[in-house]
């Protein structure tokens, strides 16, 4: 099974601190890591490869320093990695990014001389938190998709996927090729072992720019291809106010909540 893992390099949110005066994020000196959900996607992919054979290829869009994130994936079982980086790609929103990545996936298939049976990614990146890019890739490529996967098992040429949902989980069957996004899996991503870690440090990461993506429509890339316009960004005020009705019966509490919401014009 040939698997494409889409990853994003993000700031290590565990080390991000808030400036106590300006209330903005202090990014200086904050190390970059692979988006944690993507590390689960990679681990799931490597486990499938170990069982079924095939190749695991990383694709990541970002600035040149994102090559480091790809390199760290090569240390834990990925076979190859491509950095998608170009001047025309700057300022892309999720729609443009997913379009560029879908074009990159086609270009990589050609270069690697294979077809991906599975495209997998984390459910969302911890910096943007949109959870839109991977589902949009599926749409661009006209592939079936399953989001919030807890586990991926191959069965007779199809995938059986345990999907996380509010009431428990669903078991879904998906034909291949498909796009899947994963949540935190029941197993942890492996730690790099010294051999592959050393090899990964020596690897050159091929970079694909707009010139390398043959069929790409540049009007759909970058700022011009991005319908999202950010009007303003601000740090939300922490508001811990709340009313708890613990000493009244549930029905009465529900009525009170409903009337409060209606007074506030929310419902």
């Amino acid at each position: 099974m040939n698997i494409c893992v889409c990853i994003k390099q993000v700031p290590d949110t565990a080390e991000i601190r808030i400036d106590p005066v300006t209330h903005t994020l202090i990014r200086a000196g904050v190390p970059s890591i692979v988006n944690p959900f993507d590390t689960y996607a990679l681990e799931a992919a490597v486990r499938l490869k170990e069982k079924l054979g095939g190749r695991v290829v990383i694709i990541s869009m970002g600035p040149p320093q994102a090559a480091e994130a790809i390199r760290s994936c090569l240390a834990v079982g990925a076979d190859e990695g491509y950095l998608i980086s170009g001047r025309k790609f700057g300022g892309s929103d999720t729609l443009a990014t997913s379009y560029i990545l879908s074009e990159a996936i086609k270009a990589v298939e050609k270069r690697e001389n294979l077809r991906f049976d599975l495209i997998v990614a984390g459910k969302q990146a911890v910096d943007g938190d949109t959870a839109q890019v991977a589902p949009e890739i599926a749409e661009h490529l006209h592939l079936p998709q399953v989001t919030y996967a807890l586990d991926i098992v191959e069965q007779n040429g199809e995938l059986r996927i345990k999907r996380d949902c509010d009431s428990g989980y669903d078991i879904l069957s998906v034909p291949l090729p498909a796009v899947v996004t994963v949540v935190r899996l029941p197993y942890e991503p492996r730690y790099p072992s010294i051999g592959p870690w050393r090899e990964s440090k020596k690897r050159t990461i091929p970079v694909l720019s707009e010139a390398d993506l043959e069929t790409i429509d540049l009007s759909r890339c970058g700022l011009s291809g991005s319908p999202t316009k950010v009007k303003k960004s601000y740090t939300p005020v922490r508001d811990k106010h709340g009313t708890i009705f613990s000493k009244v019966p549930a029905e009465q509490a529900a009525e009170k909540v409903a009337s409060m919401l209606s007074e506030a014009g929310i419902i």
Partner: protein
Amino acid sequence: MTATGIEDIIMLHDEQHISASGAVTASDEGIPIRKKKEVLCGMYNQLTPALVERIRSVSDHVFAGTDINPDYARDEMPVYGTKMPDLAVQPRSTEEVAAIMKICYENNIPVTPRGMGTGLVGGAVPLYGGVLMDLSKMNRILSYDLENFVVNIEAGVLLADLAADCLSRGMMYPPDPGEKFACVGANVATNAGGMRAVKYGTTRDYVRAMTVVLPSGEITRMGATVSKTSSGYSLMNLMIGSEGTLGIITELTLKIIPAPKASASLIIPFRDLRTALATVPKFRMNHMDPQAIEFMERQIVTLSERYVGKAVFPQELGGEPINAYLLLTLDGRSTEEVDRQIDQAADIALEAGAMDVLIADTHNRIKDAWAARSSFLEAIMEETKLLDECDVVVPVNKIADYLEFVNEQGRKCGLEIKTFGHAGDGNLHIYQCSNDLDEAEFKKRVDAFFDIIYREATACGGLVSGEHGIGSGKIRYLVDSVGETNMELMRGIKKVFDPKMILNPGKVCCQL
């Protein structure tokens, strides 16, 4: 007084003396009294309603009767006995501590200082009742002096809070004892060591100055914000490790250092513990200086990962079982420098017989790799009904032989033994666990086991405690280890600081 008769070790009030025959006499009455415990209990007065009122007049945070937190009767090792105090106070300032202490001194009321009660040797248990002084509410970080690399804090600041606050300023407070929710003042009182001791030293190495309330209620300042001193006896260093028996530490000036810019941890699996331990000195010989070097066996790692709910340590490699691990942390000025250290450490480990070297080079991976190590004690407690512990320290080249001896003696004594420890500094944590013995039988077996293993620790050049202290639980082993001459010196020091024997009685050098 004979050297072997532990029960005879007793500190005496000024009016009392030991007769040549070894009998303790109260000189006023001249009557030999052999029931020492009663003598000392008799020495103390009971708190009267009038005294409680006086204490309330100097402190707004006084708890009596059923308002006293039942946790104050114990620490985390209740096997050494529990006892409720008659009154509990939570002072907010040095002056408040001093005022309470003065009242107790004038009226012969025993006082036991306490931090978060995370001790493992009964050190904070008020064995004679009286006043329990909970210092955990004195928890303000007062100021930083980054030109002299010090931070001023109140003694009740939690280690976790101090560490995080320093990091937010790009600084590091290096001592890193396993229990992060202990008070720093109590870390000083036990000279706690921790994981980073191998590179950065123990708590003692980071204390520059302190404010102390003496048993009499006097307030004194010891040490200064200087890097050198040749200025008379170091009273401050006597206070460090005195376990609340000489004075109450209320404020501290601590040395801090610029935080390393990068760090990484290595999980190094081995076929057996002996090969793992034999690897440790090789890092040093190759000019490496890891921040921490811990050893652990598979069984305890599995137990702890089950408790933590996250498994990152491999169980086997290519079908071959892993039986022991070293966990290293490396730090440096840049990622590149740490990468070079990883390379070098891996070469050393693989040549010494390691099965592989796994790298944790992100914050989360480092955290997960250490989560299991940091939770050993809680994991053991979770699955064990009866538990006792010792934290001997032995020369690093004796660790493997000593642990083999300990495991064999555990089998002979019919006890389940779990061990882990600091491979870099020889400090071992040896747990005796039981889920099926009755308590009396467990204690009997543990006593027999301790007698043998403490004797062996001394014989191979070690000491009773690396970082947990003596408290009330380890006094007899301290006597056996350091000898009567040194014990007598300690008792003399105790007497100078605390002539009325009211501060944390029954601990360290005076068994009551």
